[in-house]
């Protein structure tokens, strides 16, 4: 079931080509979640898609819209509505953080006084308040990531695009970044497009995912709906003669995939786990391992990659 919210991003046969190489091919779909995850293995075209949406690269085919604005004709308007945190190190070394963020705010259209006030606010918000008068060149990698986040939100964008925001961060810094992203999402003032190859980052922050593989969309899912409707799984490892065991489980409504003492069961609604133990006991079958879990983003991702 699709969301009734107006779409944030609409892709209509979008294609991007660099020379002879086709980077993005016939991308179609629309996403409207508060936080959208853009997933895919390295080289899938995630960053290219983001950069095309921002108008850095012209599409070679099709089109795309952000909040209904066409990326070719409404580039300037789209850029007014968006904030972008690039993947790579991007800053001006011989500037203090506060003057850098202020300048970025002014370039986004804020008057100088408002830009200065907002620069202080966002630097405190991301946790660089005490270091705001230090030169950006002297910042650590984690601090530079936070400064990049600050510059992307200084003008209060409606759509925040984050390209690998946790790259190079240690676990506490990563946790802090994830918390900030979630907080911003929960304010309800902006939509987020998070591009990452780290499934955990997306799982912890996003409610909709778009999975890319070799320049194509291979899966588009609403994570909230998937989580609500997803099925329960059991992974089993058995020892002994399991003849008839999969059939007995199938008779109880389980979908069963079995191979060499290993099974993956998809359980029907209302299925009692003790039935598995009962059937195993009847056949004198040892259960060496039993993992019970719900469908995770990793499963969705792996299924999409296998497709």
């Amino acid at each position: 079931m699709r969301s009734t919210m107006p779409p944030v991003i609409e892709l209509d046969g979008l294609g991007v080509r660099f020379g002879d190489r086709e980077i993005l091919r016939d991308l179609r779909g629309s996403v409207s979640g508060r936080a959208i995850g853009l997933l895919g293995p390295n080289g899938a075209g995630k960053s290219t898609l983001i950069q095309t949406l921002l108008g850095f690269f012209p599409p070679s085919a099709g089109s795309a819209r952000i909040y209904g604005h066409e990326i070719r004709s409404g580039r300037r308007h789209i850029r007014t509505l968006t904030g972008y945190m690039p993947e790579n190190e991007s800053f001006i070394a011989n500037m203090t953080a506060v003057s850098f963020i202020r300048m970025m705010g002014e370039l986004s259209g804020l008057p100088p006084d408002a830009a200065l006030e907002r620069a202080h606010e966002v630097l405190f918000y991301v946790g660089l308040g005490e270091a705001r008068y230090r030169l950006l060149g002297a910042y650590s990698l984690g601090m530079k990531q936070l400064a990049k986040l600050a510059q992307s939100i200084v003008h209060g964008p409606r759509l925040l695009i984050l390209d690998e925001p946790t790259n190079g961060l240690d676990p506490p810094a990563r946790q802090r970044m994830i918390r900030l992203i979630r907080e911003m999402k929960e304010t309800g003032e902006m939509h987020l497009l998070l591009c990452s190859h780290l499934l955990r980052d997306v799982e912890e922050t996003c409610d909709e995912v778009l999975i890319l593989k070799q320049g194509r969309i291979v899966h588009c899912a609403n994570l909230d709906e998937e989580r609500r409707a997803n099925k329960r799984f059991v992974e089993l490892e058995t020892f002994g003669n399991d003849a008839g065991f999969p059939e007995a489980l199938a008779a109880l409504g389980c979908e069963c995939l079995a191979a060499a003492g290993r099974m993956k069961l998809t359980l029907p609604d209302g299925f009692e786990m003790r039935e598995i133990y009962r059937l195993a006991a009847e056949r004198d079958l040892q259960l060496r391992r039993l993992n019970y879990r719900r469908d995770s983003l990793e499963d969705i991702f792996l299924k999409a990659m296998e497709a």
Partner: protein
Amino acid sequence: MAVYKRTYKGYSGPCTATWSRFLILPRYSFSRLFQSKFLILFLMACFFFPVGCALFIYVSHNLSFLRTFNIRAENFIAINGKFFYVYCTVQAAFAYLLTALVGPGLVSPDLVNNALPLYFSRPFSRAEYVLGKMAGLVYLLSLITWLPGLVLFAIQASLAGWSWARQNFWIAEAIVLGSLLWITVLSLVAMAMSAWIKWRIAAGALILGVIFVGAGFGAAVNAVMRTNLGSMLDLAQDNSAIWARLFRLTDADLRIDAVDAANAMAIASLICLWLLFKKVRAFEVIK
């Protein structure tokens, strides 16, 4: 910072006019540039000659002062087109040195630190970026070329009378037009070098080299081909030819025509613009 402000808030206040945003860049450039004491000293040195010219104009109109030193007014250099041509030529040399000093820091820091995606992800185009960066240099060079030139013209007009100003108004036009032409070419050369050479010292050397190499190569072409067209490769000589025409000098020893010189400068500017737009991009697509 109040604790209650440490939460994310959107912005709903007024926005500045889109057309004026390129002027933000020179403002920030100046605040960084004027941290250099050497630059401030050099900028001060650039005003010595205009101050000397102003004194000269004043003295040339002060007959009693000249009589004190038994100097006859008619032996003094006349304040005319040639006087302002010399003034502009000297200040053009200072402008050139100032460009070599300031120019390398215009674009290369943004390229080195990968800052261009941050500029261009905002409602700010490549043309505005180039215009903004160029505006900083244009302000600075204007400060030492045509602005003091106009002040000198005003001093001379106030001392020589309104009729002199009316008859010689073309001098003021020549000062502004000639200087702006030179400033534009210098700015574009400096920005193109700054965009292509990330090492500041090398970029500065190359900005200086563009004129000298052009002059040397032009002289070689002239000698080998037995022509004067090689002089078109010398931007300084192109500029002199244009100024000689603007200042209505008939006795100037010039090898090329002002129109040819203007064409050569226009081609040089277009090449610089092309070089600039090849590099000033949010992301470079590597083949």
